[in-house]
């Protein structure tokens, strides 16, 4: 539970015993934290660690499981939290992308939820609204015209508009501001200014909760940090003094994966290869060359937005790319090759966004698994049931899918089992190049081991594999070498033997320096 020894006064914001279960799956378990007046408190954690869920429970977007408490300035709010109560208690929320209306003016954006009508016609008095907005904006050091359009503002002023909207109803020195990865929308050179502005508000006694993914930024600016891992609090309210990014990353990632020992793969060095030359695309600025041998697994990693996560989509033809890919000696220009042709050539993509890009949740397991192969294996007038059933059963057996029923709707499976079906779908035919983006995201330890073993086995059978992952343990378990990305370029190659700490250290070292030099990647990629 949160450590409260440092303050006498009640914390500005305290949450206790927050759990959240989606359709039988617990994504947040007994989480809690406390933010003292004047404190900037960070929350970090991987994708799927529950940090966004926690933020959304506090923001009233998700209803938590019974038992949760949300306390502001010593007063407990009714749960599930209602927006009106939050506003009355002085809690302001700045969302991920700032939530601004680009074509609106500054006044409109600040006052959008607070506009008051007056007179019998309930007309809006814009002069009065502008005065109200100006009070909040002045506190933030906003110096531009209130009539300017938001799309014409520089990033730091856009952030000020979003914050002004969140703080306009508190009196100075009170309240809590919650930033849900909001700095992601800011370029690196605007960050200092942003934090200086925020710090001025906190000096009066307001508190801030920063949900973030750039560890360096959190460490540099926050007073305390809470780490979430697998839906639980892994470290509560740790003072940031004297912690390194490596320490924080280790706490964040954990060594949750009981080491899986896999047999050495025999790589077919003389066999046909997959080569990539001059790959460039959105989020990948520097041309990338890759040589993949059959049976080899190349890992790609880096911070969110560094470009590593874009590579599978560019190579699969799912995103606009330039460069060439050569499979079995046949060279293809990626700019002029359709996704369908690449699929036919044996390129398979396992995307990260499983419910939208990976699997059709309203179809059965067998239908999903058969989908890419239905043209080749079925006849134009008959899909044929026997082979679909057979292949689905093979996937179920190979990956240990529960329940072992090909007729089950995919949407009814747990996340780990869905991920198995998604991978299994591409193991049916002869896949030459398997592209994986976070294939073990948010699955339990057993499912993760099953998936990694299957990936290893596919490679051992002669498929070239690219694994884009922010899980160091996964990378060291199956990869032969790992390419580290920063600012849209592969900057370092780490070859086996390696361990997770080496990859963590390489990923998170010099991050602030690197991003200070090249904020370009943040503007280009900008998402994780």
């Amino acid at each position, binding site marked *: 539970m949160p450590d409260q020894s440092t303050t006498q006064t009640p914390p500005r914001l305290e949450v206790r015993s927050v759990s959240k279960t989606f359709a039988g799956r617990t994504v947040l378990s007994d989480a809690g934290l406390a933010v003292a007046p004047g404190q900037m408190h960070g929350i970090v954690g991987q994708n799927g660690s529950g940090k966004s869920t926690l933020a959304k429970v506090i923001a009233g977007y998700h209803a938590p499981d019974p038992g949760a408490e949300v306390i502001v300035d010593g007063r407990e709010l009714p749960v599930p939290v209602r927006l009106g109560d939050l506003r009355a208690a002085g809690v302001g929320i700045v969302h991920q992308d700032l939530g601004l209306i680009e074509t609106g003016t500054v006044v409109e954006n600040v006052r959008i939820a607070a506009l008051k009508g007056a007179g019998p016609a309930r007309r809006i008095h814009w002069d009065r609204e502008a005065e109200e907005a100006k009070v909040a904006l002045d506190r933030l050091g906003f110096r531009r015209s209130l009539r300017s359009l938001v799309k014409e503002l520089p990033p730091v002023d856009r952030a000020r508009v979003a914050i002004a909207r969140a703080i306009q109803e508190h009196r100075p020195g009170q309240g809590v501001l919650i930033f849900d990865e909001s700095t992601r929308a800011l370029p690196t050179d605007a960050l200092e200014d942003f934090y200086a502005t925020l710090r001025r508000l906190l000096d009066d006694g307001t508190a801030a909760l920063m949900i973030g993914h750039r560890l360096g930024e959190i460490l540099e600016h926050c007073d305390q940090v809470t780490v979430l891992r697998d839906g639980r609090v892994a470290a509560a309210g740790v003072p940031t003094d004297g912690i390194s990014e490596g320490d924080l990353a280790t706490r964040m990632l954990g060594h949750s994966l009981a080491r899986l020992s896999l047999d050495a793969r025999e790589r077919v060095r003389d066999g046909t290869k997959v080569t990539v030359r001059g790959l460039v695309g959105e989020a990948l600025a520097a041309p990338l060359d890759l040589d993949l041998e059959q049976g080899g697994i190349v890992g790609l990693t880096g911070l969110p937005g560094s470009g590593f996560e874009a590579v599978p989509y560019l190579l699969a033809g799912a995103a*606009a790319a330039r460069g060439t890919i050569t499979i079995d000696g046949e060279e293809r220009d990626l700019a002029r090759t359709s996704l369908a042709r690449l699929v036919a050539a044996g390129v398979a993509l396992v995307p990260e966004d499983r419910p939208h*890009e990976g*699997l059709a949740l309203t*179809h059965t397991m067998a239908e999903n698994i058969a989908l*890419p192969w239905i043209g080749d294996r079925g006849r*134009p007038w008959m*899909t044929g049931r026997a082979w679909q059933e057979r292949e689905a059963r093979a996937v179920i057996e190979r990956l240990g899918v529960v329940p072992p029923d090909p007729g089950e709707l995919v949407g009814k499976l747990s996340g780990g089992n869905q991920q198995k079906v998604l991978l299994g779908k591409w193991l049916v035919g002869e896949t030459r190049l398997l592209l994986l983006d976070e294939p073990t995201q948010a699955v*339990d330890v057993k499912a993760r081991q099953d998936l990694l073993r299957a990936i290893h086995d596919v490679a051992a059978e002669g498929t070239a594999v690219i694994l884009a992952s922010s899980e160091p343990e996964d990378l060291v378990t199956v990869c032969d070498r790992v390419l580290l990305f920063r600012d849209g370029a592969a900057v370092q190659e780490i070859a086996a033997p390696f361990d997770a700490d080496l990859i963590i250290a390489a990923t998170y070292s010099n991050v602030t320096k690197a991003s200070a030099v090249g904020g370009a990647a943040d503007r280009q990629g900008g998402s994780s």
Partner: protein
Amino acid sequence: MSAPDARHAPAPEGTAGPEPAFLRPTGPDYRDLVSRTSLIGIWLLVAAGFAIFESDLFLQEGTFKTIFGAQFELVFLAVALICTFTVGEFDLSVASSMGLSGSLVPLLAVQDGLPIVLAVALALAAAAGVGVVNGILVVRIGVDPIVATLGMGTLVLGITLWATSLNVVNGLSHGFSELALRDVLGLPIAFFYGLAACLLLAYVLGFTPLGRRMAFVGSSREVARLAGINVNRLRFGAYVAGGLIAGVAGVLLASTLGGYDPNTSSSYLLPAFAAVFLGTAVVQPGRFNPLGAFIAVYFLQTGIVGLQLAGLTGWVENVFYGGALVLAVATTTVIRRKTGR
């Protein structure tokens, strides 16, 4: 859609504990059977109600023929709508395409003296052409399908009215009416055409790779695209097929009536929608399915004929079709929310 954009929405997933086992009950699933056939049960109840309270009028061979001998054009329109619904699209212009082809047949054959076969071919081509334009607007240019097809439907209706000078065009030969009205087992052959069209589409959707691909395009377009399916070709094809099938409905209607009244076109759209949505409650609950729509067409017709026999005319159709559509959509929404489909 760029790759990184897709990354901001991690699905909430469990992380700990054993995988839950969704064991299915063994043996026949009676609840499933009940939900699949409930509409048929209601149909029988409605028919039984009319049979009891209006036995002298309802229990006549003529009534049976009135119910099953008409409305085949709605069956075809429903099939056309299901083509587009299945791939996740929407076509509000089918009734106008039907009107276009239904008017062109007598216009070309009677007024212009073209051979009837040629007139029919041109009428079908014109209706398919409406589908092509819809496809260009929606798939190529990316216009919202509701707006595009609503506009196209109105435009085509207007052109049809202009071409026919707002008049009923008739004078088709008696021989041509045999195309739709030939007596088979006491019913006009067009009834069986409609049944055949439904069975054909049901087969395509249920048993062929084409149908499977269409279903995936409709439910998860990105999943289909990443599996190597040419999503846009299927969407485009659905519009053209929808137009063509609506054209067939127009030709058959012209054959039945010996001509066509273009002013009536728009009155066919809502009944077809009502049947398609009501049909999602039967055979394959929760999915657009042609056999369900077929049953729904005649279910609605039974109710309307029964009420008309009871002396309620004029307004009954609107109340019945509109009410059925709203009720069907509301029921489907509730069922989907409950079962999480």
